[in-house]
């Protein structure tokens, strides 16, 4: 039984089959990459898995549980966190607040006790802070802790978004293009962090990527999509050599 099992997943927007009968399995503890040219349906696939879209057909199972028809806010507490390609942070809040929002699924107190800020709420807040500081240490965000997202450079925002996802203490992390728009140095750091997250924190990672260097370095297996369909699956080196993948990127004659 695989950890994340996507079976026969499809969705159409109007006449376009954005994801067309896609199936793949991710094992616990691996780094799995999804590649494909623009418009291949990678982000749509992520939106389907994380519950933002509901599919026209097919199923998604996570840790033995059917999550196909669950809304996004009920999937997150199961231990599935994600980032967005174009960064969806809470712009007018500080880095610290963004990371604390990531702790939402671990809250134990009710809104009524928040109104009175009972001692139990304070203890819980201190606990959240300790966990958030661990993430800040890991991703070296200490310098930006009190700054508003709106004032941060793009590269740092990317890291904060990964940090927010880590604050959920996920078992499975979906990273949508973690290195897009980053310079080579930032990309390399991101690669190391993904390795750390996978090895040290034991988080299974599924990522969408364009950067083949990064994919070859961190991913164990790769799935290639084109026009919503799976065209290849296997080790990074094999997939890169598959004729269908070369055609999809460079165009067949």
């Amino acid at each position, binding site marked *: 039984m695989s950890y994340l099992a996507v079976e026969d997943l499809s969705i159409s927007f109007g006449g376009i089959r954005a994801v067309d009968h896609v199936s793949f399995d991710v094992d616990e503890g691996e780094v799995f990459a999804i590649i494909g040219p623009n418009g291949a349906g990678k982000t749509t696939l992520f939106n389907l898995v994380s519950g933002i879209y509901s599919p026209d057909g097919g199923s998604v199972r996570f840790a033995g549980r059917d999550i196909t028809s669950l809304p996004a806010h009920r999937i997150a507490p199961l231990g599935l966190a*994600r980032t967005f390609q174009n960064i969806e942070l809470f712009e007018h809040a500080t880095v610290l607040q963004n990371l604390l929002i990531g702790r939402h699924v671990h809250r134990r107190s009710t809104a009524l006790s928040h109104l009175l800020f009972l001692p139990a709420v*304070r203890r819980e807040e201190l606990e959240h802070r300790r966990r958030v500081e661990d993430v800040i240490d890991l991703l070296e965000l200490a310098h930006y802790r009190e700054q508003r997202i709106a004032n941060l450079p793009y590269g740092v925002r990317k890291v904060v978004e990964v940090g927010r996802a880590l604050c959920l203490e996920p078992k499975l992390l979906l990273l949508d293009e973690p290195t897009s728009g980053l310079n080579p140095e930032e990309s390399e750091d991101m690669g190391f962090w993904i390795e750390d997250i996978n090895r040290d924190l034991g988080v299974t990672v599924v990522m969408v990527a364009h950067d083949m260097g990064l994919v070859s370095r961190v991913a164990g297996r790769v799935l290639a999509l084109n026009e919503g369909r799976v065209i290849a699956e296997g080790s990074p080196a094999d997939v890169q050599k598959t004729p269908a993948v070369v055609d999809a990127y460079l165009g067949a004659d």
Partner: protein
Amino acid sequence: MRFLFKTHYNQDIDHLKHGGDRFWYGLLLVLAAAAPAALGTFYLGELNLVMIYAIAGVGLMLLVGYTGQVSLGHAAFLAIGAYTHSLLLGVGLPFLLSIVAAVLVSALVGAGVGWIALRMTGIYLAIATLAFAMLTEQTISRAEWLTGGFRGLAVPQASLFGMPLTQGWQHYYVTLTLLVVTLLAALNILRSSTGRAMVAIRDSEISAESVGINLAVYKTLAFALSAGITGLAGALFAHRLGYLSPDAFTFLISLQLLLMVVVGGVGSMRGVIYGALFIGFLPQLLAIARDTLPPQIAQAPGLEPGIFGLILVLVILFEPQGIFGRWLKIKSYFQLFPLYRRATHRRQKTYLRTERLR
């Protein structure tokens, strides 16, 4: 410039961050408590009204400034609070119980409105809340058996701990206490996960969902909280009016409440207080301005809503963070002197965001 050396997470959680805060807020509280001794009846009454506005503003700020849901219908919650309180006082309920009931009834109605309006955002939500306010106004004027309609409803005399509330200073202290309690409750919400969920919804609904925030629950909760607090202000407002009739809770009041939140500074509780002071003294300013204008303009119908709307537009265009934002700028000018540059507070560019999924 003050540098804080933090040694414990509690320093981030506490309301008053350092000695300076404790001193100034303490002084403000002492001054507020001493005001009845120094002010005449008229100004004490005006200050009382400003504080009632401030309570309503705290409620509206939670909704508009922190959850990002616009409401043009908060006069309705003010009315519901006022009528519930007066009617319950009339049947002999004690003052405090009646206030609690007014808060609960308003919160319940607010939750209903919030739940119905779940799918609406922005201008559509504003129009829906406006429609709700008109509906409430109509209902109050038609339900004569209960509210007296346009004949009005006399607000019964209240008494607290066996002491009848007749004097201005008594009402002043009741309002001051409730304002402090409301502010503390609102700030408590904001420093816990409920408040952070509200901020998350304001800034990005899609990522709020994907960190596990149930949009429906938190939007409804925000509406309920906001309506409840505004209902509290309504109950106090009833005593100020003395006589309730539907035309005391018109669209103009809703507009004034929104104006207060925007002019004070969206997204800050201190802004509410600045906004309330502004709104409280605006009518006096308008009265003075009227005397200097030619009568054709001064007596024109709809002059007040026009001016309110104009102020709203100008503030949103030129100082979106309101009086509070202006205060921050002045403060950092002096802190950074002579290094302050206008660019320090320029609005930053927003990077491309994920396509809206609605």
